[in-house]
């Protein structure tokens, strides 16, 4: 059983990056210890060192007071340390019990002992409320159940310190509640848990102590009971974080984006958007609120020209753009920040510079008669990266190695630099850390002040309420109401569930 784990003066250098700088962390049995920090603060690196996946450049690890040399995950497991990765390490074609038994010594020598494993697994499951059917195939399980399989795997290997890397990112709100119950039971049974997160309210809800990392360094360790979200946010970002914006009153101009009776089919050919009509004026942010899957994605893609419209019209500055190609729509002045950043927003393998000129590369001054002018491209991209605070080692860095927040800033730079008349922003801050979120909000408000008509689609109600001038609520592909931005969350929630209309 693990009583204490201490990481002392851990430093980890990657070529060109100092991921952890003299980090100290101590965890004891019977506590949930949150490791809080922005994306790229060094949380996962630190934990991979503890789990034997990385070797620390400097520093030592002590388990129950004795120095431990963890060279591989197998070493870590042998010391009682288990890790549940953000991307589950499960074999989808295997049953639950096969996944648990994989790599274990069998009680029957070379033969498997799945029945024995299955029996012990049920005991563990009953003890901690981790109910999963041992003979179910893993790919058929819901994500929340797969996560339980991961926890069972670790417990089966006698792990008494569990590292959970952003475990709630994949769960629905109901699953999170159940999951937290399981974590409490595990803690109360004397296990130690390290909970990696950048979500403040979760850290407040579940942890006993918090260690905050920023830029690879520990900036503080506090008892959860003696702190609050504001203080944690300040430690995490290094300054006060603005979560509430004062929207300056702008003079709203003429209608720029006008949608009439729009019908858009989804991938299955069913109408995901029905009889949808909306007007967005210059200098206005219109928020679209709704539970995911109620036609928001199809609406955004239809406006951007990436999905065919089956009925109705879309006008940009009175010009009909319905079913035009994305290139034509772009030249009409529409900018699009897609929901699926990595699939639609950037070409992963391309460099920062190449991604920055995806839309404008064929036009002077970037290209002349079909040949690139690299000096102009370089100048243009240097300007964009500086203006939009995209943190990248160089313009030639492949985009896939940037953090989510920086990729989003790069997309923002590319889209806003064209001074669009219409901006469709779909989930612009999903999976983005607090600092970058704040920055993106600031930029959206700047665009509003510049007279852009903005359609903001978001599942984050706080975001929608903070930024929008008006809020349209979508339910099953239709607008069930257009309400002022100070409408209460409860009221919006009822509309989003289809229980109330406000037309």
């Amino acid at each position, binding site marked *: 059983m693990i009583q204490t784990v201490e990481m002392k003066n851990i430093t980890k250098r990657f070529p060109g990056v100092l991921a952890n700088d003299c980090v100290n962390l101590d965890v004891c049995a019977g506590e949930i210890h949150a490791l809080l920090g922005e994306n790229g603060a060094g949380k996962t690196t630190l934990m991979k060192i503890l789990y034997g996946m990385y070797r620390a450049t400097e520093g030592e690890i002590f388990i129950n007071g004795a120095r431990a040399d963890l060279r591989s995950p*197998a070493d870590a497991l042998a010391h009682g340390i288990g890790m549940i990765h953000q991307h*589950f*390490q499960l*074999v989808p074609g295997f049953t639950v019990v096969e996944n648990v038994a*994989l790599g*274990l010594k*069998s009680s029957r020598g070379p033969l498997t002992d799945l029945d024995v494993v299955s029996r012990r697994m049920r005991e563990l499951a009953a003890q901690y409320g981790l109910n999963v059917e041992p003979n179910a195939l893993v790919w058929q399980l819901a994500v929340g159940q797969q996560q339980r399989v991961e926890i069972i795997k670790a417990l089966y290997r006698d792990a008494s310190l569990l590292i959970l890397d952003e475990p709630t990112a994949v769960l629905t709100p109901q699953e999170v509640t159940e999951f937290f119950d399981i974590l409490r039971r595990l803690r109360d049974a004397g296990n130690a848990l390290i909970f990696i997160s950048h979500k403040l309210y979760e850290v407040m809800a579940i942890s006993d102590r918090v260690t905050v990392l920023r830029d690879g360094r520990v900036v503080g360790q506090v008892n959860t009971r003696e702190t609050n979200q504001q203080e944690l946010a300040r430690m995490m970002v290094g300054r006060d974080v603005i979560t509430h914006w004062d929207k300056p009153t702008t003079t709203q101009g003429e209608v720029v984006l006008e949608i009439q009776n729009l019908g858009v089919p989804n991938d299955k050919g069913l109408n995901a958007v029905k009889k949808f009509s909306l007007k967005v004026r210059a200098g206005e942010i219109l928020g679209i609120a709704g539970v995911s899957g109620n036609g928001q994605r199809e609406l955004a893609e239809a406006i951007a020209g990436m999905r065919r419209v089956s009925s109705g019209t879309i006008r940009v500055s009175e010009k009909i753009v319905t079913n035009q190609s994305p290139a034509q729509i772009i030249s009409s002045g529409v900018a699009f920040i897609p929901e699926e950043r990595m699939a639609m927003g950037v070409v992963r393998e391309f460099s920062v510079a190449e991604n920055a000129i995806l839309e404008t590369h064929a036009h002077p001054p970037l290209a002349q008669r079909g040949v690139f002018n690299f000096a102009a491209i370089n100048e243009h991209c240097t300007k964009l990266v500086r203006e939009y605070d995209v943190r990248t080692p160089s313009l030639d860095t492949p985009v896939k190695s940037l953090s989510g927040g920086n990729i989003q800033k790069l997309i923002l730079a590319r889209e806003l630099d064209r001074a669009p008349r219409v901006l469709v922003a779909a989930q612009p801050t999903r999976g983005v850390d607090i600092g970058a979120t704040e920055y993106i909000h600031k930029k959206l408000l700047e665009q509003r002040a510049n007279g852009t008509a903005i359609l903001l689609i978001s599942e984050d109600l706080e975001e929608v309420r903070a930024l929008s001038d008006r809020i349209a609520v979508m339910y099953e592909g239709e607008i069930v109401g257009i309400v002022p931005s100070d409408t209460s969350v409860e009221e919006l929630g009822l509309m989003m569930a289809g229980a109330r209309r406000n037309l």
Partner: protein
Amino acid sequence: MLEQLLAPAVIIGILASGIQLATPYLYASIGEMFSQISGVLNLGVEGVMLIAAFAAYYIALTTNNVVLALVVAALVGALMGLITAVISVTLKAEQGISGIGIYLFGLGLSDLLFLVFVGTPKAINGVPRLDIPALSNLPVVGQILFSQNILVYGAFACVPLAWFILNKTTLGLKIRAVGQTPEAADSLGISVARVRYITVTIAGMMAGIAGASLSIALLNIFQQNLTSGLGFIAVALVYFGGWRPFRVMLGALLFSMVSALQLWIQTLGIAVPSDIAGMLPYLLTIIALIFAARQIVTQPTALTKPFERGE
């Protein structure tokens, strides 16, 4: 013509030679199956078979010891498997291309060695027939199933053995895991490379035995390109069988029966151009694969992908 083929003696003959001809397919494709399930496509089977076929033939020719010949063939095959493993597991080479390389190497080397050390084809005394007591006296069935050489029995014994290893042993669990989600196996302390070395070496050894079964048990001769594409069909059979031993066996039997049929058509002097008859097994490969493509659900998802530990 049809009457000729439907005579009882001929039907028994076709079935008996069909069972016999299944031998090289079975060894090669069961071995290949292990390699593929662990995530390594081993296209060089044909080349390995050729080298091992020559090695077995040469030992049998010079020592008259078929057991030694078989052991040498298995070892030569295992060595070739080991080389394949170095290329595709350690050096992470593109598996399709390097497999073709190994095939061409085997084709050339076996021919060269044959020309240098033997010259003209000479028949040898192959693996003897083993009549299973009592069973071989059964009418019809006895002649078809229980009056074959030892390698034939061995080939069929490999099928349940392979099933058992894959489904009932910890090694089998590891092999399947490594071929589907090597990252998951790695995170549990399983060496992906080690497991793949084991399977690819087994595949080589089995290909070696498959080659020997041709040169010292079925044909008792060696010549240039003795295998004539049989190794490639074995690779196709693994897909056809959906990576399941008994289905692979069904596929092997299907092909060997068609081959037997075309041999008998030629033997009986039935008026079908021999080129057309000879084409049958290959035509069947293409048709079978078209249908097999639809049921690929059990495909090892990491097939042909070298494993690299993530960031």
